[in-house]
């Protein structure tokens, strides 16, 4: 009986019901889509950072991440290569040798990260090759060829064909110096990376740095990126004690934390909006209930207890809110899914973000049913609570007061 009465009351005050319904619907859609876009941009930023150079996983000597020096090198890269060769879960892997050296062109000298890579293997592990903007990418037979970051090339005032001096320390602490010809220039969009990095063929760099059969770390890519954490844990069981396998979450911990903080601020910002919506719905509920004071007084006179009145009014509100939140969740999910499949391409966005070290040329959502479920529940709970105060207030009035209420 309460249910049919609640339904009748909803239909009786159509205007207010529709407004409450639409407000709740709009809030739900907005929240789901907002969170999906926020998470989507974070996923995209992290994915770009992972795929441009860092990679999904590394194997290095324990302590290398804290002190990236010659005391923490993999001293027998061949044995690690043999071990990784037997790993069926790995799609690709390759050793890298990284060092800090001085690059000099004419009067300009800049301290830079020099990466020794195996060009053919790197194609499947990073976006270095696809980031080429001028000249050609490295190949496995290159000797004195360097692949320069676009901003580093600008800072060095160097162009294709220029001879650049590289001065560093070899593993025996002697001075390692050689001239390299600029073979290609790359731009990933990661500003810091483009302005501080240069790459050469590892085989040649090894002869200069006396780092044959040594590596700073191995970069890994598994058949399925989503299995990275599981496979990293499994690798850690198999590796000799002095080595460790790290996932991108460990390697980019600062970025991951920054994204978490950003999410927190995102939720805080939208919660202000929800607070407004919460009060709007509450005021609507308040007005709605008080215009029916006499009707409530009549029900009370007919024997309805304050508890039954509470159930009736809450039931009315719940029907409206639950239906609107449900429909809102469906619409929000559909929108999120659409923009997950079809990201919004924004020309010039990459340029706008590059100063922050972020590579984004499109905005996509992260379609995650679990997150949508939690978002929906949060809105449902919040909107349901908004009717609590008006119900409490009306139940405070006596039967006589409600009957006489003008």
């Amino acid at each position: 009986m309460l249910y049919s009465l609640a339904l009748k009351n909803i239909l009786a005050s159509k205007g207010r019901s529709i407004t409450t319904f639409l407000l709740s619907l709009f809030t739900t859609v907005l929240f789901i889509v907002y969170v999906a876009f926020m998470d989507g941009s974070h996923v995209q930023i992290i994915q770009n950072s992972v795929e441009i150079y860092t990679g999904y996983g590394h194997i290095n000597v324990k302590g290398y991440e804290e002190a990236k020096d010659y005391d923490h090198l993999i001293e027998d890269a061949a044995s690690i290569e043999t071990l990784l060769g037997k790993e069926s879960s790995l799609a690709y892997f390759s050793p890298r040798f990284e060092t800090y050296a001085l690059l000099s062109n004419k009067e300009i000298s800049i301290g830079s990260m020099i990466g020794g890579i195996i060009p053919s293997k790197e194609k499947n592990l990073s976006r270095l090759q696809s980031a080429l903007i001028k000249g050609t990418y490295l190949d496995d037979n290159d000797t004195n060829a360097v692949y320069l970051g676009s901003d580093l090339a600008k800072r060095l005032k160097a162009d294709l064909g220029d001879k650049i001096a590289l001065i560093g320390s070899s593993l025996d602490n002697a001075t390692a110096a050689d001239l390299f010809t600029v073979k290609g220039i790359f731009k990933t969009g990661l500003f810091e990376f483009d302005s501080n990095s240069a790459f050469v063929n590892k085989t040649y760099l090894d002869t200069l740095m006396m780092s044959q059969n040594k590596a700073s770390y191995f970069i890994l890519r598994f058949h399925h990126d989503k299995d990275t954490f599981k496979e990293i844990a499994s690798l850690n069981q198999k590796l000799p004690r002095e080595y460790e396998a790290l996932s991108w979450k460990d390697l980019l911990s600062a970025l991951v934390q920054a994204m978490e903080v950003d999410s927190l601020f995102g939720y805080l910002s939208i919660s202000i909006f929800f607070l407004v919506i919460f009060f709007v719905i509450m005021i609507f509920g308040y007005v709605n209930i008080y215009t029916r004071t006499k009707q409530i007084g009549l029900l009370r006179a007919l024997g309805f207890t304050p508890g039954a009145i509470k159930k009736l009014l809450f039931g009315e509100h719940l029907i409206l809110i639950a239906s609107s939140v449900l429909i809102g969740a469906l619409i929000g999910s559909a929108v999120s899914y659409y923009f997950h499949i079809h990201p919004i391409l924004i020309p010039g966005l990459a340029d706008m973000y590059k100063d922050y070290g972020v590579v984004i040329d499109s905005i996509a959502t992260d379609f995650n049913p679990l997150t949508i479920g939690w978002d929906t529940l949060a809105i449902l709970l919040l909107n349901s609570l908004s009717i609590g105060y008006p119900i409490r207030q009306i139940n405070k009035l006596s039967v006589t007061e409600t009957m006489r209420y003008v």
Partner: protein
Amino acid sequence: MKYLFVWLISIVFVFADEADDIVKAVEKNLRGDYMYAQMRMIVTSKRGQRTVKVESWSQGDKKSFIKILYPKQDMGITFLKLDTQMWQYLPKIERIIKIPPSMMLQSWMGSDFTNDDMVKESSMSKDYDARLLLKKMPIVTIELIPKPNAAVVWGKIVTDIDISRKVPLKEVYYDDQMQEVRIMTFSDIRQAGSHILPMKMELQPLDPDKKQNRTQVFFEKVNYDNPIDPAYFTKQALKRFSN
């Protein structure tokens, strides 16, 4: 009470002045007006031991020229410091390279010394405020705190000085978190012409990861008493005196 306060303040200033004078006297003794030296540097690290022999010419604290004599693969590499700038000549690639400020904290020739140590861009007397901590004649302990706008690397230096011979005995370097970072000890103090000099220096980093590291420098020849040819302190000298 008022007199006690004034007396205490005066004591602080007197001690500060005295400490400043001691630091200046030590710097003047070690640098001299001109200095020629031949040194042997032994670098010990996890990766083994390495010996480097160098020859150096300097004039006051503004100009210095260093030439690597040994090992063979580094022979002929020269360094020139003029004021706060540093250049390097590498005979293998026949290039003169200017060392940028960002590389000043990098290791010099694989040792525990930095490029900044070599150019002595920072001066204890000019960039630090000195304070006398302990006086136990002839040894004094002085604390050096960077002046507010000084471009220096260390958060603090505490040094033990033999004031009778105007030589340091020990220097403890702290980072900006006031954690001890490295210790330099001086020994084998001898008369070198008109100056007294510790003929052996040992630098030990305190990073637990670098427990095995140390750099020892032995002065094999020192001459403070002959002026140095100004031709050494030009960029042309880098190539000219490389052979």
